[in-house]
C-alpha cells in the first residue's frame, strides 16, 4: 500500500507546529509582561494613581489571555500525536489549567475594564458635535 503520509512524518510536522505555536504563546506573554513593565514605570513616574495601575493590569491581562489562547491551540494540536494515556492525561491537565485561567482572566478583564470606564471622565453632552 502506498504510504502517502507516514505516521512518523505526521508526528514530526505536528511536533514542529506545536513548538512554533507554543513559542508564539510564550513570546506574547513575555512581550506583554515587558510592555506592561514599561507602562507601570511610566504610570509610577506620572503619579497617575490607582486607576493608572488598574489600566496597566488590564493591558497585561489581555496579553496573558492572548498567550493562553496560543498555548491552548498548541494543546489541541498535540492531541493529534499523543500516543499514550499518560501523555493524554497530562495534556488534559494542562489544557484544563489553561482554560480555567483563561476564563478567570477574561472575567477579571471585564470587571476591571468596567472600573476603568466608570472612573474615566464622561464627555459633556453636545460638546463633541460640530
Amino acid at each position: 500500500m502506498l504510504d502517502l503520509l507516514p505516521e512518523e512524518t505526521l508526528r514530526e510536522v505536528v511536533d514542529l507546529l506545536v513548538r512554533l505555536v507554543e513559542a508564539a504563546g510564550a513570546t506574547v506573554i513575555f512581550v506583554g509582561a515587558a510592555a506592561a513593565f514599561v507602562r507601570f514605570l511610566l504610570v509610577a513616574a506620572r503619579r497617575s494613581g490607582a486607576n493608572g495601575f488598574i489600566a496597566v493590569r488590564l493591558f497585561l491581562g489581555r496579553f496573558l489571555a492572548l498567550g493562553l489562547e496560543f498555548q491552548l491551540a498548541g494543546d489541541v494540536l498535540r492531541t493529534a500525536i499523543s500516543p499514550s494515556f499518560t501523555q493524554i492525561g497530562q495534556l488534559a491537565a494542562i489544557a484544563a489549567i489553561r482554560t480555567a485561567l483563561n476564563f478567570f482572566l477574561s472575567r477579571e478583564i471585564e470587571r476591571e475594564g468596567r472600573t476603568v470606564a466608570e472612573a474615566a471622565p464622561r464627555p459633556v453632552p453636545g460638546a463633541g458635535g460640530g
Partner: protein
Amino acid sequence: MPAVDEAVRTAAVLAVVMGLVAALAALLRGGGPGGAMAVLLDFLVAAGLLRLSLAQTWTAIAVAALTIVIRKVVVAALSLRTPPPAPRLTCLTRRAPEA
C-alpha cells in the same frame, strides 16, 4: 530543544524580577499595598504560565497549577477586600438657593 527551554526559563525569571520592580513602584507611587500585591501577582502568573509550557511530568504540572491557583485566589481575595468606588453625590448635595 534545550536552548528554547533555557530561554523560556530565563524569560520566567525576568518576569518575576519585572514584577518585583513594578510592585515596588506601585507601592511607592500611590497604588497602595493591595494594588502593589495585585501587580506582583499578575507578573508571577505570567512567569507561572511560561514555566507551565516546560512542564513535562505530573509533579511539575501539579506544582505549576497549584502556584497559579494560589496566586489567583490571593488576587480574588484582594479585589473582594477593596471597597467599590464611592458614587458621586454632586447632584444630591446641591445647595438650596439662598433667599
